[in-house]
């Protein structure tokens, strides 16, 4: 049953929802206890609202007017629908892990030829029978964040991937989240990727809906641990249905001399929020994060990054591009903390927004908190419209207004997309951007 809420009743409705489903969630004993604790943390605040500084621009209490029931296990029809949607996202050679309505779907997944030294399990299996250390790690994300706490309480499934020391994967790992159910539902997933030392991997996450699937709410979280001297390339593409919510988070830690290159693009969902915490735990590591928002209609997309420089000699680069049309609303919050010991930190952040209509909005909130004195840190932000002289040049060469805009938009986001190292994944991102451009006509 869907519960339509007044703003101040939101928390109560979710409490009821949790009370109804808690006994069916995987993992007993300590897991159930940890879920209860997490839910209490969530419940103290309820859905975050604009009076919380971190949620100033994304007032979930106003945006999320309805609490949907927990998704049912996908039936044959949902799996069939999902299979068709997955085909569009297929990458040749990739190891594919498909979650349909938040449940791992082995028949849609493809793990053949997986390298030795890689283990893949479902979250459900780990919660029910896994070792205690992994279970503890699954509950490590920052539960002070109400939506992460809610995810901790409600998570039903996901994938847990462990890559042994010295193993470098040649093919990308792809996690595809598909909403396939006929009735509107809430989906709670959590995945974990543990990369040993001297290891390497590429991870792609795609969020999509099967044909005809409309309102749903995806709540996902990802925990990543990158060992010393290891490298992870990461791409996430939000192409959820235009009525959907996507609230996801990532908690990433890097060991020493590690490298994390991440790219995220949001072109789907009605409301989305991606909050990532990236923490340097070892010296000499490097992070590049690139992001793109492509929004129109009344789409709202929020990317909130927290770069935690806790140790010396690390570098981070954040590049963010927003293209906003109609009444779209793009939010970028970038917080960089350089702790007292983190000397020789090199941290930079640059955001640019392109507004295509008078009603489009882009909010940029850089926050630099620097407690060390020998560092290089900087940030910059620009907002503007498409250059009229460039548009005219292109139109004088025969391009229609939309075609000229499309070419300039592609160029604008191109710099961020170019940061994707893997050719196939770059093509995947370009294709997603192309779909957004074509849909605007």
């Amino acid at each position: 049953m869907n519960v339509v809420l007044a703003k101040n009743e939101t928390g109560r409705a979710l409490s009821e929802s949790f009370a109804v489903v808690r006994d069916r969630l995987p993992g007993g004993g300590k897991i159930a206890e940890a879920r209860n604790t997490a839910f209490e943390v969530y419940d103290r605040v309820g859905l975050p609202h604009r009076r919380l500084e971190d949620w100033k621009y994304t007032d979930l209490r106003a945006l999320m007017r309805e609490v949907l029931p927990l998704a049912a296990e996908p039936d044959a029809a949902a799996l069939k629908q999902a299979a068709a949607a997955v085909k569009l996202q297929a990458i040749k050679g990739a190891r594919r892990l498909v979650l349909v309505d938040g449940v791992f779907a082995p028949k849609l997944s493809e793990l053949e030829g997986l390298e030795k030294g890689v283990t893949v399990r479902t979250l459900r299996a780990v919660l029910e029978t896994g070792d205690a250390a992994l279970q503890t790690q699954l509950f490590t994300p920052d539960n002070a964040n109400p939506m992460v706490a809610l995810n901790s309480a409600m998570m039903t499934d996901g994938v847990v991937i462990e890559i042994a020391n010295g193993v470098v994967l040649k093919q990308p790992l792809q996690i595809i989240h598909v909403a396939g159910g006929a009735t509107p539902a809430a989906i709670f997933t959590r995945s974990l990727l543990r990369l040993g030392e001297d290891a390497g991997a590429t991870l792609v996450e795609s969020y999509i809906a099967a044909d005809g699937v409309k309102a749903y709410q995806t709540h996902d979280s990802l925990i990543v641990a990158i060992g010393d001297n290891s490298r992870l390339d990461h791409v996430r593409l939000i192409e959820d249905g235009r009525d959907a919510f996507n609230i996801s988070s990532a908690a990433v830690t890097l060991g020493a001399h590690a490298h994390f290159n991440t790219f995220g693009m949001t072109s789907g969902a009605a409301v989305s929020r991606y909050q990532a915490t990236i923490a340097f735990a070892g010296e000499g590591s490097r992070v590049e994060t690139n992001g793109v928002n492509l929004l129109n209609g009344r789409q709202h997309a929020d990317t909130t990054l927290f770069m935690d420089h806790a140790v010396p000699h690390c570098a981070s680069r954040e590049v963010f591009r927003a293209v906003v049309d109609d009444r779209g609303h793009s939010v970028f919050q970038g917080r960089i903390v350089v702790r007292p010991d983190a000397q020789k930190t090199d941290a930079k952040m640059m955001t640019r927004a392109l507004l295509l209509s008078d009603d489009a909005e882009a909010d940029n909130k850089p926050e630099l908190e620097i407690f060390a004195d020998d560092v290089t840190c900087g940030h910059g932000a620009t907002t503007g419209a498409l250059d009229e002289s460039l548009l005219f040049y292109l139109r004088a060469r025969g391009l229609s207004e939309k075609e000229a805009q499309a070419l300039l938009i592609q160029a604008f986001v191109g710099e961020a997309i170019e940061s994707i190292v893997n050719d196939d994944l770059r093509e995947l991102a370009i294709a997603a951007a192309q779909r957004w451009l074509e849909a605007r006509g």
Partner: protein
Amino acid sequence: MPLLEVKDLKVRVEDREILHGLTLTVNPGEVHAIMGPNGSGKSTLSHVIAGKPGYEVTDGEILFRGEDLLEMEPDERAAKGVFLAFQYPVEIPGVATMNFLRTALNAQRKARGESEFSTPDFLKKVREVAKSLNIPQDMLKRGVNVGFSGGEKKRNEILQMALFEPAVCILDEMDSGLDIDALRIAADGVNALRSPDRAMVVITHYQRLLNYIVPDFVHVMSKGRVVKSGGKDLALELEASGYTQFEDAA
């Protein structure tokens, strides 16, 4: 039928009238030079023909093969065969020249109901033209005009002209910023495109360009009007006596 007819054209920018009733008729195969001092309205004329926003036509008309050009969007004009070689071609970072050329050419062909160029045919054609204009291949891989010298930008305009095969080419101050060698290459490119079906309107401040692109007609503009028209010798006369004599005539 004339290719291009500008009839008693009056144009305003904001509150100021720039063209005060300009008339010009261009037939197929003809090369017209429009000369005049700075501020006489030469570039305004080229912009209005190409459809640049920001100009208000208060009177008169522009016909292209008898059709009302002013009713058309800039891209429709391009597809019909109107080409403006810009005085200051813009730089478009992030848009590769090759991709731009192909997108533009196919947009024009599509608008005319023609099939799109196949990739091998397109590449062959671009390479041929680029070679004749002394444009190195690596330039085509860069962003449109990004990091190009003044001469390279102008050659890129002529490359496009050769590729799109327009019926009317408006060359706006093609010689500005070019040294003599660059000017010669550019002019050779333009001359190669002269044909009985195609007309050119060469806008220039200096007579020098007309030594390389020899016009059939020369028009002198001053203060928003054509004040004198003649043959190619008029350009030489101007070179000797300057524009001052026409300032009063206007």
